[in-house]
């Protein structure tokens, strides 16, 4: 049977390793809910307990980017995530935030000021997005080089527009470029 794996989820090996260390009540990708936190609230309401064990954890895979307002001390997605836990009266220590946002403790500490009730944070690059598992090995083949640079621009964002305009104005014959304006 086909099993969908989100790029923003931990690899199966990493999930298994976490399950050997904690009693994992649930594991979800925050990216699934980042535009609908009512849906996350509904999802987690199915696993709410009256009492939690010290090893209980709800694993949150946090590998997509967050939304930031100027002057706001934390990402809006993270704020909403904590709001769900509070609404459902789930202690914050039950949250295990696995993230590629190295240094996110400063946001978490703002959202969870009580040091006795804070999520565990694990910083890692091992999601399906980052880690392919199998890599095709090829020679470096330096003698094949014929173009100095390559720049493949994905979804339109300010820094990509700026890089394209820079290349367009000065370096189009030195860099192979692709754009994706959709």
């Amino acid at each position: 049977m086909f099993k969908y794996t989100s790029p923003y989820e931990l690899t199966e090996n990493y999930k298994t390793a976490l399950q050997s260390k904690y009693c994992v009540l649930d594991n979800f990708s925050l990216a699934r809910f980042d535009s609908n936190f009512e849906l996350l609230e509904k999802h987690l309401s199915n696993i709410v307990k009256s009492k939690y064990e010290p090893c209980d954890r709800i694993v949150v895979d946090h590998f997509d980017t967050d939304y930031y307002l100027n002057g706001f001390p934390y990402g809006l997605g993270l704020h909403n995530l904590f709001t769900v836990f509070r609404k459902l009266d789930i202690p914050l220590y039950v949250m295990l935030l696995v993230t590629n946002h190295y240094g996110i403790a400063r946001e978490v500490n703002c959202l969870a000021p009580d040091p006795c009730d804070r999520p565990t944070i694990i910083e890692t690059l091992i999601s399906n997005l980052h880690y392919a598992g199998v890599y095709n090995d090829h020679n470096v083949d330096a003698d094949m080089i014929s173009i100095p640079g390559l720049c493949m621009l994905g979804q339109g964002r300010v820094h990509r527009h700026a890089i394209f305009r820079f290349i367009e104005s000065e370096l189009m014959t030195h860099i192979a470029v692709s754009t994706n304006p959709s």
Partner: protein
Amino acid sequence: MTYIVTSPFTRQNELWANGSIECRPVTEKYCHPIISGTKGELSTLNHADFYKYIGLDIVTETVYNYPYPYISEKTLRPIACKRLFVVVAAPGVLSLLHSKGFETFSDVLDESYDTIQDPHERFWQLQKTIKEFVLQPVETIIDIVKLKTPALEHNFEVLKKLQDIELQNLNDSY
């Protein structure tokens, strides 16, 4: 307790460019003839064959003006394809890669951009770094890539073992 609605308008951090940087939206679809393949072939999983024709990958990460050194599969792609790279991203990305065991190329590329917090200053430095590299004769770039081949091979090996390394860290630290 209410949720804050998120939308592209709440990505204020991405509205960093001022009038001194030309960032008119790119509306035209363009693809250099050497670039081919499906999206899956361009992932870290599959080596994109056309990488052998280029010396330097200018990676534009998912985010640029961001509070963390955010690394996605885009930064790992040139590592999988054994090529030098510059990362147009938040500061600290190269430093984070070093902490994971990867080598970068400060002896042949000016990588000072990685430590510059100001997004405009960082962008100017990135332009300078890119320009200096790609304006060299192709023969020189070939020599540089040959010189850095041990580092490129090393990085590929680190990438292959990355999950094992991270799982070991998990067992040691938590």
